């Protein structure tokens, strides 16, 4: 199949990136393909760093052939000299052998790379820095990785789920599915269902609709937005995680502390709003009666002025939790 046809097919299927940003896959491929360069690279991102997201591992475990095929298709389409399959440390240990066997059998120029950092490497340019052996920090954009990525060559970076669905699309075996990582319900796990389903339908179909009062966090277990029961007619988003929290048993402040501990751990330190803001949020949340006004200010600053998409997205869970669930009236 010609590269144009491959891209056309992906476009027709309406596939969007499953790494969180939901950028149209065909467009991304087209951008890298169009750039004139001696060398191009492909990076398949299987670094799954966000809490409560399990879908990358699900693919590595159950669909390695499709994944490798997806990588191969992408590589041929953009004419990448090399592809890196970037894996979280534990995934690298668990699946390296199996994947290498497939790669070897098909004699493909794919290198499996052990992830250096944590959550941070989910950000594309940080991932590139990590591959180049540098400090784990995002790069300035522009230039975008599609123009100057790995070793300053045009680089296509796709999540492993995206590439898995590429192979399904090319094999005419895709009906608009996505992967949902569901936790906190009666039947936690990874489910493959239509991306068009509402969150409510997903929870019901998988037997996870609780019989108690609850709210959910969707996208990822740290940066995902909080949605109330009445808001579940929308479809899934981001990384596709749905986390159920029982309203009675969840202490919003504890929840925020959990998030903030994660963001403290996974903070690169580059820009002041995120570095200082997160530090001060943690400080505030450990106080008995934190000043809500300051918390709101910090979240506003994070969202509007952080350097990278991670810093910007960080405000979302806090802001939505405060707005929808309220935190301090229940903290008694």
């Amino acid at each position, binding site marked *: 199949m010609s590269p144009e046809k491959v891209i056309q097919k992906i476009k027709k299927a309406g596939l969007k990136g499953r790494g969180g940003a939901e950028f149209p896959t065909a467009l991304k491929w087209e951008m890298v393909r169009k750039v004139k360069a001696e060398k191009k690279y492909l990076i398949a991102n299987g670094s799954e760093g966000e809490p409560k997201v399990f879908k990358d591992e699900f693919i590595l475990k159950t669909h390695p052939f499709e994944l490798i095929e997806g990588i191969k298709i992408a590589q041929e389409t953009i004419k990448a000299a090399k592809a890196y399959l970037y894996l979280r440390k534990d995934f690298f240990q668990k699946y390296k052998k199996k994947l290498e066997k497939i790669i070897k059998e098909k004699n493909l120029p794919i290198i499996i790379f052990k992830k250096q950092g944590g959550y941070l490497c989910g950000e594309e340019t940080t991932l590139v820095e990590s591959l180049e052996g540098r400090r784990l920090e995002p790069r300035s954009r522009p230039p975008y990785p599609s123009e100057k990525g790995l070793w300053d060559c045009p680089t296509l970076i796709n999540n492993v789920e995206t590439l898995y669905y590429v192979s399904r699309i090319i094999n005419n075996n895709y009906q608009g599915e996505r992967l949902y990582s569901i936790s906190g319900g009666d039947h936690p796990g990874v489910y493959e269902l239509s991306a068009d389903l509402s969150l409510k339908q997903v929870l019901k179909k998988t037997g996870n609709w609780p019989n108690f009062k609850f709210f959910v966090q969707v996208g990822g277990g740290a940066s995902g937005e909080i949605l109330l029961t009445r808001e579940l007619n929308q479809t899934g988003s981001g990384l596709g995680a749905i986390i159920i929290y029982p309203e009675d048993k969840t202490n919003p402040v504890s929840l925020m502390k959990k998030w903030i501990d994660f963001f403290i751990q996974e903070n690169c330190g580059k820009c*002041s709003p995120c570095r200082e803001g*997160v530090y001060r949020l943690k400080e505030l949340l450990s106080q008995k009666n934190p000043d809500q006004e300051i918390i709101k200010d910090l979240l506003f600053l994070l969202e509007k002025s952080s350097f990278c998409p991670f810093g910007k997205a960080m405000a979302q869970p806090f802001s939505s939790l405060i707005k929808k669930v309220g935190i301090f009236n229940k903290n008694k």
Partner: protein
Amino acid sequence: MLQSFYIKINKKRFKARFSETILEVAQRNNIFIPTLCYHSDLKVKENCRICLVKIKGEKELKTSCSVKVKPGMEIFTDTPEIKKLRKLNLELIFTQHSQECHDCVWFSRCQLLDLTKKYQADTSRFSNRKEKRPVYKFDSALIYDSKKCIDCRNCVEVCQNQGVGFLELKGQGADIRVVPSEDKNKDCVYCGQCLIHCPAGSFEGVGEFEEVETPLKQKGKKVIFQFAPAVRTSLGEEFGFPLRTPLTGKLIAGIKSLGVDKVFDVSLGADFTTMEEAKELITKLEDKRKLPLMTSCCPAWVKYIEFYYPEFIPYLTSVRSPHIILGGLIKTYWAQREKINPQDIFVVSVMPCVAKKYEITRPELKIKGLKPVDYVLTTRGLAQLFRKYKVDLNKIKPLQADHPLGYHSGAGIIYGATGGVMESALRTTQAMLNEKEISKIEFKKVRGMKGVKRALVKIKGKSLKIGVVNGLGFAKEILEKLKENPDLFDYLEVMACPGGCIGGGGQPIPTSKKIRNKRAQGLYQLDKKRTIRTAHQNPVIKEVYRDFLKNKKTAHYLCHTHYSRKFKKGLNILPPGQY
């Protein structure tokens, strides 16, 4: 192709060019956008987020330091949202910085303070989170107070650019810290470029002005000040004079008003250095194996060689740096002349440099057991002293430097700019070899801000391969090339600081390419105005050589030194309270 076009900033139209950033266009048109981590010498990092602006049609705010302008772009620099974000961000940045404003290198020009006022940041909203961070001392030259660091990383980058890499970034998140390297193969050379590029005043020279006050009050002490070439066209910046204003006379008068006995001019010291260096060059030209001759006026460069490239030590000229020679002459020649016990003389050098603070501690420089120079005050330090004693440079009547060690040639002045040592030495070498009066004064090929300048100079039928390295960052490449091909140069000048001494670590901040250029221009103009523009024609030089340095041994003792390989000492962390 259209080269320029219009953009709108805050609803006003401005001409802009394709390669420019929003910040550059704004600064060119005097539109204020606050910056902290931005420095025109360095890469754009977008770390501090203070320069965020709104671009019409763009969802997110953008950093004006990084975004290039496009035709028709409409920019807003000060919307209520931006103001609020700046206020909040400043509250965070400010509380990771321990204030110590009274002796800060930024003094009255602190951007942090100005911005907190401008945006009404409430700096009491958070507690200072860096209170317990350590203070480091880099030998006798620099103090790095990590309590003040705002994590912008300018120092790390500039230290890297200097080819030193002593300052490193460690840790992650809020625990990120700039630390001196523990690697035994990396050491500070005291150039002070970190200080010049730090927006938060985390670096300062050791001591600064307080220690000068004691000898001034001591009875029976003769306090002698001598000031470096570069100081005269930069000091004015501390007091709001236009760039490159020469303040020689006012500077001397100001120093005198502090109760100083005599003020001499290091430019005369430079003339001595030129004389000795020209002689050494001529001798070494006879034996090509001893070439290239490398300058050694810059103590940071000397330390760099001694630490990083000791194999090149034999190539460094043994001639002492200008203020060390003059200091030595003050305590011998002048002391004898004035019948003063040299032990009663306290020599203070006002230098554009912090490495000079380290240089004066080198034991091999002692003259009859005495340090030629007792104290080094930076240009900034002198300004602080002037402010403390309310010396008003606007009103003060200019004075001339004292006789006889105040008289100098034009060649002595241009020592303060990159290429100046080379040019001065060439003027005199040419004359020494030609025996008649020289024909050429200006060697324009060695001037200017290029990193490496190369030229062929014809002297007495021979062509001399000369090189000028402007900024230590370019030295490594040249030294590596010299290892392979020692014939590459016959004579090499290296100055650690970009622009030479006028861009030194002791100079007023801010310093930028534009400012360095102006300071250098000021020096070249002063040179042009001098009737005597070569060292060997300086009557004081003639007199001192005739009366005092007549035997070679004395001349060698006072004007030459030696070098040795340096090893890294342990890190010096100052205990709390001692600083």
